[in-house]
């Protein structure tokens, strides 16, 4: 029995060795956690300039100290490298970074506007193949500045800028619905066929770009440089064609059934006073796109059904009366219709089906789609698209008649 216990002890000892998983072990101290990547075009030769926003955990942890945080350093550091492939640049940047770059926590990929205007369809293979990078990483295009500059801007309320941009993106998609959140897998699915082209939200620096990266940027109550989510980039075959702003961007979200909530301002009364407006908060919005085929030609109908509350008025409209509500609904309806029409017009004029009409056709009429697939962009530009909107104002908040007297 002694040999049995001795050999089983030895066996247990031997079995403990592989439990450590030594071969693939990576110590946390040896890793640089990347929050965001920025990709820019090199001005004179082919290849990319890739910037990495590396999170400095010790600086982020000292959240309580406002002024005393200067000892810990900046919450992020930005390293930049150049090369002909993204993977190459990542490894090359080891010449600058004291630790190995670690991508599992990456939140954001920023693409420079100049690169997007050329062609961004070749960028994403690395992100697909790597098992570290998640498919849920979000993409934005930097507007009016390079991605490198965007990554350098410090933000006040959220210490890690990539988290700040991520938070802004998600928040504005849900309450203002003029920008959309696009993930890497979304982009890849949209780069594949003509049936649904690419739309990416834009981000820009408001104010002085050069001051964005300084600590002094955070020492003021109103910052010299701020990051703002602005507009949606419309692509055709991987190339940035134009920017959708304001109502067009909202229309773009509406067509894709991504409108969550927003505020629509409509004129209050019949007179032309531009200051007399009513603001309607959209509480629910559902969009359905249906395809029909007439004589082999595809046509689409967009059905929008939205509900909202009146949130603010600046004229003496009596909201306790049904007629007033109906009038406002009528104006709201026409404004929604106009926004959607503008968004469709923007896409059709550029022959780029960014809203997925082709996919809708594929789902209902696959045989027609097969015939038209190769020249879908041209067919789409001439398609007839009807818009039907139903708008319902349900409530007017805590008051009925406004206190404003005419």
């Amino acid at each position, binding site marked *: 029995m002694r040999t049995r216990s001795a050999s089983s002890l030895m066996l247990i000892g031997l079995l403990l060795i*592989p439990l450590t*998983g030594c*071969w*693939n072990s990576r110590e946390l101290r040896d890793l640089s956690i990347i929050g965001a990547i920025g990709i820019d075009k090199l001005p004179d030769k082919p290849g990319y300039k890739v910037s990495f926003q590396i999170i400095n955990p010790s600086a982020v942890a000292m959240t309580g100290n406002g002024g005393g945080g200067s000892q810990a350093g900046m919450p992020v550091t930005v390293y930049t490298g150049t090369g002909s492939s993204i993977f190459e640049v990542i490894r090359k940047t080891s010449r600058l970074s004291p630790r190995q770059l670690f991508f*599992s926590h990456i939140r954001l990929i920023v693409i420079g506007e100049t690169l997007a205007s050329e062609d961004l369809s070749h960028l994403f293979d690395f992100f*697909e193949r790597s*098992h570290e990078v*998640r*498919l*849920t990483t979000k993409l934005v295009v930097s507007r009016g500045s390079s991605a490198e500059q965007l990554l350098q801007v410090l933000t006040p309320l959220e210490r890690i800028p990539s988290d700040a941009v991520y938070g802004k993106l998600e928040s504005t998609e849900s309450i203002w619905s003029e920008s959309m959140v696009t993930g890497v*897998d979304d982009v*890849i*699915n949209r780069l*594949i066929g003509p049936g649904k082209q690419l739309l990416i939200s834009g981000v820009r620096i408001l104010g002085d770009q050069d001051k964005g990266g300084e600590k002094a940027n955070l020492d003021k109550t109103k910052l010299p440089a701020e990051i703002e989510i602005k507009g949606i980039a419309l692509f055709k075959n991987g190339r940035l064609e134009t920017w959708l702003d304001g109502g067009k961007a909202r229309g773009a979200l509406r067509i894709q059934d991504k409108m969550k909530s927003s505020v629509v301002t409509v004129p209050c009364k019949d007179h032309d006073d531009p200051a007399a407006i009513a603001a309607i908060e959209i509480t629910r919005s559902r969009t359905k796109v249906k395809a029909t085929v007439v004589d082999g030609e595809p046509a689409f109908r967009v059905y929008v059904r939205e509900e909202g509350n009146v949130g603010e008025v600046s004229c003496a409209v009596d909201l306790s009366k049904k007629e007033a509500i109906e009038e406002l609904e009528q104006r709201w309806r026409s404004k929604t219709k106009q926004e959607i029409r503008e968004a469709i017009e923007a896409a059709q004029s550029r022959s780029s089906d960014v809203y997925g009409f082709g*996919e809708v056709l*594929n*789902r*209902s009429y*696959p045989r027609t789609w*097969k015939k038209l697939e190769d020249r879908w962009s041209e067919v789409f530009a001439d398609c007839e698209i009807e818009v039907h909107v139903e708008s319902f104002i349900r409530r007017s908040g805590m008051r009925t008649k406004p206190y404003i007297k005419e």
Partner: protein
Amino acid sequence: MLKEKINARQLFSLIVLFELGTALVLPIGFVAHRDVWLSILLALIGGILLFLIYDQIVRQYPESTFVGSIRQIMGTYAGSLIGFLYLGFFIHNDARVLRETGELLVTSAYDMTPLFVICAFFMLTVVYVVSKGVEVLARTGEIYLLHVLILGGGGTILILCSGIVHVENLLPVMEDGAGKVLESAYRYILMFPFGEMICFAAILPSLNRTSSGRKAGILALIASGTILSAAHAIEVSILGSNIYGRSTFPLFLAVSKINIMDFIQRMDGLVILTLIITSFFKCAINCYAAITVAADLFRVREPMKLAMPVGLVVLFNSMMTSNDWPEFALKGKVVIMGILLPVYSIAIPVGLLAVHWIRRSIGSKSV
């Protein structure tokens, strides 16, 4: 030799774990794309038929092992020859399962670790469990079925709660016509994973009540087929058919997209754990089949002494079978699914059954 008995519930767990094997995680719908769920259900029907054929063969000679039954049908020399063919097939199939699992683990998690180390450790555990006999394996299977169901159920709930499923990705159904769906079902999925059930022909003699074994087997196939179909449908609806068709490990990608309240994220561990458990059983059952066939052919009195040698052969075979993953995948498509599996899991068993019936009818006529 057949002193050990397993009951119907254990057979059920073994079959379900075996079928889920690597088929759960690999993109077996590489031909049918969106309609993979339909192909799986179609192939399921064929799979049940195959299982009934194997069950019938084993049932004719309830006191013999699989090889013994073959010998009785075809005569001693032809029977031993066929037995040798099966031995080679089982060993190679086991090597393929081992290699597949190792490659998946290396691609998704252990990228710095040599493949040989992972395969060696895996095979060590397989050999250890198998050397204890089929009863132990079956009991372990019962327990692990519960584990896999909990992992799978939990994963499915998380997926459904995180709102990443887009059912539109499954439409339009059969956009390339029913031809592709049928081709995918009967040329590929019927072979892998349903055709690999031939290994169970070596385990079926160990059933204690043969009648409920048949029912348990059919139920197990239906259950595993449904799970596979649902899992692949979910994968396609999350990833879209394009990304699904191009990835090496679609279940991993699908689960890594789970993001609930920014808190529950990156549940990759769930998938890797499921892969390891189900592949373990697939490997172990193949290994057991190889060992019993070898023991029978070489008249070894204690079959389990062969566990370690067979394990070593399988390990080295898995290393040598291909240089890289694309070659491995191509071999799988052309050689295994194209030639070997149709022969070993359809042609030979049908032939055996046919010979058996002919002999019986001639025999009864001559009497």
